[in-house]
């Protein structure tokens, strides 16, 4: 069974069909990428699937269960996590705390116990800090563990988002343009990181502009144009598809 199934998903904003009858399946353990020219509806598709926007029609199934209309925090309980194209880091917290928030659902959230700082809470807290620090090291931020979030560079914040998403221990991770705005070295590092994440068993869905990155990483690629599915397949298949070539040449050449 596919981990994620999307069927005939559509959404319109002010009369513009941002996503139009899109269907696809994401197999567990794979890296799935969504590409397309600017304004093709990639991020909107992400926002629909992750519960930020509501679809007008169509269906989204997670492990066979219909999840349309669920709020993002409900989807999080089902093992779905994501990062954002324009960063959504809590600048009022430290970098480490941002990662710790990611573990929210796995923790005892009782305010009363917290206020009295019962021993169990103290122990769990210590453990959590270590876990979060390890995750930061995992994404390559070992030296930023004690920094405030607003002191981090753009590239570091992108990784921090990934670390936060991983702290939730998701089955399915959506990465929205993780390499946007990064220089080639940083992009290479992100490439390696994504591969490492996928190898650890997390299914990754990716929106990305950087073709090299996508082609290099993806098991399966979905191409969107004007909100519609243009093509689908492996990197090689997509690369050969004349429609895709036309769309990309037409758009960017």
């Amino acid at each position, binding site marked *: 069974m596919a981990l994620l199934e999307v069927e005939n998903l559509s959404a319109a904003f002010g009369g513009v069909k941002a996503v139009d009858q899109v269907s696809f399946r994401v197999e567990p353990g794979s890296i799935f990428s969504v590409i397309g020219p600017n304004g093709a509806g990639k991020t909107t598709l992400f926002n629909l699937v*992750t*519960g*930020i926007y509501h679809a007008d029609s169509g269906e989204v199934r997670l492990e066979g269960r219909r999840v349309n209309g669920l*709020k*993002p*925090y409900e989807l*999080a*309980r089902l093992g779905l*996590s*994501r990062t*954002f194209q324009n960063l*959504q*880091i*809590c*600048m*009022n*917290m*430290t970098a*480490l*705390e*941002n990662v*710790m*928030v*990611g*573990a*929210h*659902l796995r*923790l*005892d*959230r*009782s*305010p009363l116990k*917290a*206020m*009295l*700082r019962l021993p169990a*809470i103290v122990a769990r*807290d210590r453990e959590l800090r270590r876990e979060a620090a390890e995750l930061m090291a995992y994404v390559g931020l070992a030296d930023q563990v*004690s920094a*405030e*979030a607003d002191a981090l560079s753009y590239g570091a914040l992108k990784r921090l*988002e990934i670390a*936060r*998403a991983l*702290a*939730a221990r998701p089955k399915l991770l959506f990465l929205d343009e993780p390499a946007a705005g990064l220089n080639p070295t940083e992009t290479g590092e992100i490439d390696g990181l994504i591969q490492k994440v996928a190898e650890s068993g997390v299914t990754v869905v990716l929106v990305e502009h950087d073709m090299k990155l996508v082609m290099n990483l993806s098991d399966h690629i979905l191409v969107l144009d004007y909100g519609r599915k243009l093509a689908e397949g492996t990197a090689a298949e997509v690369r050969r598809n004349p429609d895709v070539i036309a769309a990309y040449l037409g758009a960017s050449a």
Partner: protein
Amino acid sequence: MRRSRYPGLLALSLFLALLPLALPNAYTYDVVVRILINAILVMGLNLLVGFAGQISLGHAGFVGMGAYSTAVLTTHANWHPLPAMAAGAALAGFLALMVARPIFRLKGQYLTMATLGLGIIIAIVIGNESAWTGGPDGMPVSSLSLVGFELSGEKRWYGFMAVLLVFSLWSCQNLMDSPFGRAVRALHGSEVASQVVGVNVGRYKVAVFVLTAMLASVMGSLTAHYVGFLTPGVAGFFHSIELVTMVVVGGMASLYGSIVGAALLTMLPQLLATLEGWETVAFGAILVFTMIFMPRGLVPTLAARFGRTR
């Protein structure tokens, strides 16, 4: 928030233990007790305003509910102050829940408008129901007797409130450094991001709001018993503004800031008391200047200047 919180707590405890040496008479004790009460109240409000980023312009309404609950229940129904206090807190919490649930389904600063209205309604009810509350002229309140111990006189109150302040600071720090608190701070930083990691944003906002409302109610009860006399002004719009001002001047999301803010703005009227009229002007000017020159508030700004973070 990573530094250990114990040096600060210890310093505060030491300061509070030594402070009586510098207090010559009952009046100075009185001012300090009022500062301590306000400090706890403002710390609570800061959880909502500074940490969760939700503004309440009617917080004094909850203070008034607590104050009048104990006053009315002990005076008219002969209740013991402690259950009366609990009843007040429960009532405030319930009301906060009823109001917050529909409000937090909406995005944006609707809480500001709702709390503004709620606070004024509570003040009007208190002012009108004079058979119970004594109306605008106010009502006397009996002193507080805890189990076998009469809490009366400024010095006893000072001791009690000093301990309570340190405890409140400790537990507020604990709370904000817990999964609950991090979720609350995260939703202020980014609602979407916190949703995505599983934080039910609406529920957490409601929870903080209810918590601060109950805390405000308890502090209101204590104020009533301490001062021994209550007027509807305790629930009024201006008092709400005063409380928010203390939060803002001291520093949003800074618990020590709340103590400083409460201290400064409680002492201000005492300093300006002989300059009738100028008090309003000074109060307003301080608000404007703080927001312009120290938008983060006194304590965080100074802390940053002296090179420490939070």
